[in-house]
């Protein structure tokens, strides 16, 4: 037994890497079908306009053009559905305007698709798209939530008066008002959470195919959840039953949420493939990605904390305006409600909380879940508010957090905003983070930086997030129109190798490795003998996909349940072969053994017997060793932790450099430490991007100003430095693996740590708060104004 340990806890190198480093990945744009055509969309260049006329005659006559379609041609198909329904305070359902596949009568944001050209080559389709003559009559438009709510603002949808989608609330308003009335101190902060573009490196692609002999449709698409796309597109848009529609999401080059949703291009190419009897492929340009992939964040909030004279948090009041964009994307209504306001307790024992959230339509790209989804917004608000309390009252940022943390022995802990945390220890993650960051040594480093003319600052944030999404009954009661369980099929082959068919999807997370490690640990099958299959509705029974850090907590647990069934059946076969009672059979390290004896059969022997059942308990059990489990989680999982950021600002340029970043997270049991570390580093990089660099900027009319990598600042290697990652874990109590999830923690914990550090560095200039991104322009302006004032 000298084989290297490759089960749970080992930093096994990734199975998927060999194809990726050799250029043998199979991404959607790498797939081509015989007789394929190419689709190019003609999109709106106006934020809001009435469509007077569309003349496609010149485009239709252009070389190579096979077809040109507009909304008129798609009259028989449905609009893009929304997966959540939120109810307003008064009990009324949210405004849910139709999201047509191609614009009907009006365009509502720059990038709204109006027509599609399908041609023999992509170049011909592109050329012909230019020839479509569209007469648009501009309408007044609005890009921000505050403008959209003003009296007389442009009305974007007829059935959403005042541009309000819903006006929702959570918590005990009367109790919060009462606590504020007797507070010794109230600290109030207005803040914004900047709008982001997810920008997975692989642009979206959709390739529709149709078999005219069988009537079967296939969609190859860049999706995080192919079964969900099959359900949404099949049932709601194209009216195709599941057995006639296959959705394949092969290698997918990053998602971060933006590839969860069902998009217009997927429905268009699938429908057109059937209409034309030829494959139709669409590949987004990056410019199209900027104006058609769902954006993230975009909140405007006011937060108020009531405190007693000792600095105890008495009550929290939050008011948030959330930008939905021009239409409701698949998960959009859930993000600023059940993924945001329910997180406002954070790591603190604040006894009462009340939050109001108004979701607002604007003439911008739809906004939906982006890495963290709601939880980064909640964490930024809370952790900025806590540091602002320190600013206003002189409290110490460490002491006030320690004083208000949920005690270690208070779990399970019921928050005042619906969630019940099962486990956590915020004291330890903070203690270790401060040690790893050498927090105590900061004053000396600050002095050294000052001697070089630099401004140094340090900031901390603590966070709590809910992931492992989600218990179906709970989300159903909150407005979800789907269940959020997961599915695994475990197939032990006759010679003992194993194929796992999982409903989760890997687009960078490394499931082919991590999930195989679960099989190695539980069934004792060598890592090299395990295959993970994902991303094809024809091969996998069902599944809800990957987002919300759910793959291991929900999908991994479904695997554990299916493997439990394999072991239970294997015990019956072993009992028969070993002439023992089933109750006496033990299973460990891939071997079934009669307890207390050396009589044993390996899993491989049992598998062979199951498929060659000559000597077999055939009247009791079926042949074969192939089991499926559906697992619906009992609760969300609750990762938490502490991030410490140290920055240095050059006062001459206003440029902020990250000099140290330390993350200590509680992600539950770690299956592959190398992959967890990589996930956290990547999440932190996106959080630093949000805090210092990234911003999707619209002008006041709704023109997207940051619509390319030339204008939208993506984090590059020289914007970042080393990111120190460690974990201090408490186990999840309600799944057998004890796992919580690690995909989003980096992007949730880091933005307030960075801004707290920047504000700390600028203390001498009287800065109380800064919205993201903390750009050199903003910082230099503050420093320069301070200098002038001093002169």
């Amino acid at each position: 037994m000298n084989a290297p340990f490759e089960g749970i806890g080992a930093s096994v190198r990734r199975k998927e890497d060999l194809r990726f480093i050799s250029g043998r990945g199979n991404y959607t744009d790498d797939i081509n079908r015989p007789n394929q055509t190419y689709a190019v969309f003609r999109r709106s260049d106006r934020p809001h306009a009435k469509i007077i006329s569309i003349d496609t005659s010149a485009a239709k006559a252009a070389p190579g053009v096979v077809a040109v379609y507009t909304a008129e041609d798609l009259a028989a198909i449905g609009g893009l559905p929304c997966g959540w329904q939120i109810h307003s305070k008064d009990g009324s359902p949210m405004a849910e305007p139709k999201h047509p596949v191609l614009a009907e009568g009006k365009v509502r944001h720059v990038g709204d698709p109006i027509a599609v050209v399908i041609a023999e080559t992509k170049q011909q389709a592109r050329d012909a798209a230019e020839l479509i003559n569209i007469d648009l009559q501009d309408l007044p438009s609005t890009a921000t939530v505050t403008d959209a709510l003003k009296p007389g603002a442009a009305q974007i949808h007829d059935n959403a008066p005042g541009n309000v989608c819903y006006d929702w609330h959570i918590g005990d308003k009367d109790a919060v008002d009462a606590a504020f009335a007797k507070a010794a101190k109230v600290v109030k902060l207005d803040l914004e959470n900047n709008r982001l573009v997810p920008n997975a490196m692989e642009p979206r692609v959709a390739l529709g195919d149709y078999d005219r002999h069988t009537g079967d449709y296939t969609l190859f698409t860049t999706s995080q959840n192919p079964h969900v796309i099959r359900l949404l597109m099949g049932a709601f848009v194209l009216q195709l039953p599941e057995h006639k529609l296959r959705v394949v999401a092969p290698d997918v080059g990053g998602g971060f949420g933006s590839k969860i949703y069902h998009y217009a291009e997927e429905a268009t190419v699938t429908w057109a493939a059937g209409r034309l009897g030829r494959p139709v492929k669409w590949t987004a340009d990056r410019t199209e990605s900027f104006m058609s992939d769902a954006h993230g964040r975009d909140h405007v909030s006011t937060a108020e904390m009531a405190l007693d004279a000792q600095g105890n948090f008495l009550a929290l009041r939050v008011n948030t305006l959330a930008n939905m964009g021009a239409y409701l994307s698949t998960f959009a209504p859930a993000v600023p409600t059940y993924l945001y306001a329910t997180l406002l307790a954070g790591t603190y024992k604040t006894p009462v909380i009340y939050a109001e959230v108004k979701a607002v339509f604007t003439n911008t790209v739809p906004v939906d879940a982006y890495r963290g989804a709601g939880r980064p917004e909640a964490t930024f608000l809370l952790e900025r508010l806590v540091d602002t309390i320190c600013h206003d009252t002189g409290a110490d940022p460490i002491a006030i957090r320690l004083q208000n943390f949920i005690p270690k022995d208070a779990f399970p802990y019921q928050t005042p905003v619906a969630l019940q945390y099962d486990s956590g220890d915020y004291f330890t993650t903070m203690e270790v983070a401060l040690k790893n960051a050498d927090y105590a040594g900061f004053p000396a480093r600050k002095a050294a930086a000052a001697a070089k003319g630099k401004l140094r600052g340090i900031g901390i944030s603590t966070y709590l997030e809910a992931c492992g999404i989600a218990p179906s009954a709970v989300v159903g009661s909150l407005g979800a129109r789907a269940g959020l369980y997961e599915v695994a099929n475990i197939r032990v082959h006759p010679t003992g190798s194993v194929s796992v068919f999982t409903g989760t999807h890997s687009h960078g997370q490394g499931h082919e490795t991590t999930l195989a490690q679960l099989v190695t640990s539980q069934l004792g099958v060598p890592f090299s003998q395990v295959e993970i299959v994902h991303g094809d509705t024809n091969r996998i029974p069902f599944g809800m996909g990957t987002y919300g850090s759910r793959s291991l907590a929900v999908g991994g647990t479904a695997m554990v349940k299916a493997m439990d069934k394999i072991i239970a059946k294997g015990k019956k076969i072993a009992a028969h072969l070993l002439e023992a009672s089933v109750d006496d059979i033990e299973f460990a390290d891939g071997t079934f053994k009669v307890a207390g004896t050396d009589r044993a059969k390996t899993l491989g022997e049992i598998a062979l017997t199951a498929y060659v059942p000559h000597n077999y308990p055939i009247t009791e059990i079926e042949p074969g060793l192939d089991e499926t489990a559906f697992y619906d989680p009992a609760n969300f999982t609750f990762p938490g932790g502490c991030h410490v950021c140290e920055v240095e600002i050059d006062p001459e340029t206003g440029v902020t450099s990250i000099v140290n970043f330390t993350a200590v997270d509680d992600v539950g049991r770690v299956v592959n430490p190398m992959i967890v570390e990589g996930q956290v580093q990547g999440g932190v990089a996106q959080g630093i991007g949000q805090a210092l660099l990234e911003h999707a900027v619209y002008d006041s009319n709704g023109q997207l100003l940051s619509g390319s990598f030339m204008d939208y600042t993506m984090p590059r290697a020289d914007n970042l430095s080393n990111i120190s990652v460690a974990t201090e874990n408490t186990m999840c109590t309600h799944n057998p693996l004890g796992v919580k999830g690690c995909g989003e923690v980096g992007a949730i914990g880091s933005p307030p740590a960075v801004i707290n550090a920047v504000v700390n560095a600028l203390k001498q200039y009287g800065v109380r708060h800064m919205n993201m991104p903390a750009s050199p322009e903003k910082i230099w302006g503050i420093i320069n104004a301070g200098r002038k004032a001093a002169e």
Partner: protein
Amino acid sequence: MPQVTLTVNGKAATVEVEGRTLLVELLREKLGLTGTHVGCDTSQCGACVVHVDGNSVKACTMLAVQADGSSITTIEGLAKADGTLHPMQEMFREHHALQCGFCTPGMVMAAVDLVAKNPQGLTEEQIRHGLEGNLCRCTGYHNIVKAISAAQPLMHAKAAE
């Protein structure tokens, strides 16, 4: 249509292209070398980096006709014919320098050129600076920088053989 003759990964190829065809389109669509990716339309992301006559080039920024007569190496041609990986590929895997894999071919090709052109060795800061033309959204670059650092001695030792 113009004809382009070039050597790709050691094999000669002659292809007819439109004048506006980009080198990356020739590689992906005419030669089926889909390892080279397209991540943007403004020459910013570097997913399409290949070597043209030994220099790293963004293949989305060069017309196919400009590559006439050139010798091109793509990610598919980096490993030896027997499948032995290039040290940079090895180190990317060893140090978990990739997640979704989409930026990886361009990142690896850019890194190989960066290290090869700097036999004196590069500091972490110089590596970060050298990667300015390549975007990765998954890793935060931390492990990419580690992989390139680790590949340096291996590549230089090999070059000295």
